[in-house]
């Protein structure tokens, strides 16, 4: 439960991730040791997703669906916090290029380029009518999604699903001097609650000034924290820093 000293204790009940070249959970250690060997591939999605919706899923949306699916028990709906720095911005860039060439913009492409498009498709596909939030925390990294999810637990929800996702930013955008894009796409889903079986974690602010990169990079730092024996993980990007501690 919440303590007075701004420490938040919660339990990761289930988690799952999707990264290119990754099919199943037990191989996470191998994946980290052989990251350069991975070939891009399309994430598999549940056959329960209606065909007419499947055609609307971008590679990033498929990664999100794949990661989330293993954290959802049947059709039990729960609030979801989506968090992505860049979302489908590469799609927006392609549309801007089309406009520059004087071409008409595809209404479908436009509707799927907005930041909450994936969450909307997810809500329809899984008939999840609970509260859905989509964050674009960018520089502030992944902690904001946890804070949002803890707020939802505090409101009385039993479980909250957090989904962190990003794909590499188009080379059109200047990366340097920022650390805002990872080498590969990644989607990490975590179902959290106050109590229950799973991985108990504590989250609190850290006074350290850190430079761990932005949201897209922090997803992989957190994934590594989950699959290794590291007792704690500190993440910050020039501004606020946070520490996750295994209990």
């Amino acid at each position, binding site marked *: 439960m919440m303590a007075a000293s701004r420490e938040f204790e919660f339990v990761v009940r289930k988690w799952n991730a999707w990264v290119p070249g990754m099919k199943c959970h037990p191989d996470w250690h191998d994946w980290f040791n052989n990251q350069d060997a991975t070939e891009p591939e399309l994430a598999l999605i549940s056959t329960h997703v209606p065909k*007419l919706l499947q*055609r609307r899923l971008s590679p990033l949306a498929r990664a999100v669906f794949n990661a989330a699916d293993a954290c959802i028990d049947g059709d039990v709906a729960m609030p979801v916090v989506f968090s992505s720095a860049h979302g489908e911005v590469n799609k927006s860039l392609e549309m801007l290029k089309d406009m520059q060439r004087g071409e008409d913009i595809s209404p*479908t492409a436009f509707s799927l380029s907005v930041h909450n498009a994936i969450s909307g498709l997810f809500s329809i596909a899984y008939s999840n009518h609970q509260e859905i939030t989509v964050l674009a925390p960018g520089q502030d990294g992944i902690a904001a999604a946890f804070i949002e999810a803890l707020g939802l637990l505090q409101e009385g929800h039993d479980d909250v699903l957090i989904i962190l996702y990003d794909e590499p930013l188009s080379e059109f955008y200047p990366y340097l001097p920022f650390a805002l894009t990872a080498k590969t796409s990644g989607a990490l889903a975590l179902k959290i609650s106050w109590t229950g079986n799973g991985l108990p974690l504590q989250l609190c602010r850290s006074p350290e000034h850190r430079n761990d990169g932005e949201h897209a990079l922090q997803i992989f730092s957190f994934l590594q924290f989950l699959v290794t024996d590291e007792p704690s993980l500190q993440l910050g990007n020039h501004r606020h820093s946070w520490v996750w501690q295994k209990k």
Partner: protein
Amino acid sequence: MENELKQLIIDALDLEDISIADIDSHAALFNDGLGLDSIDALELGLAIRKKYNVKIDAEKEDVVKIFSSVATLAAYIQAERS
């Protein structure tokens, strides 16, 4: 014309699992029929404008009637082009 339009629908709307033979010219395209939605209607409108240079103006035309089936769409496009 109707088969050409069916192929356009399949291509423009990414209906990979559907073939021309699966689309009944007189069946409803939206909701109960093929199950297409309002975004598909916009996308199809754009595809028709690009291919046939026929613009279906939602302000002036009875779009529900025009888009109701492949047959009604084909008839409208042919009438506009002649």
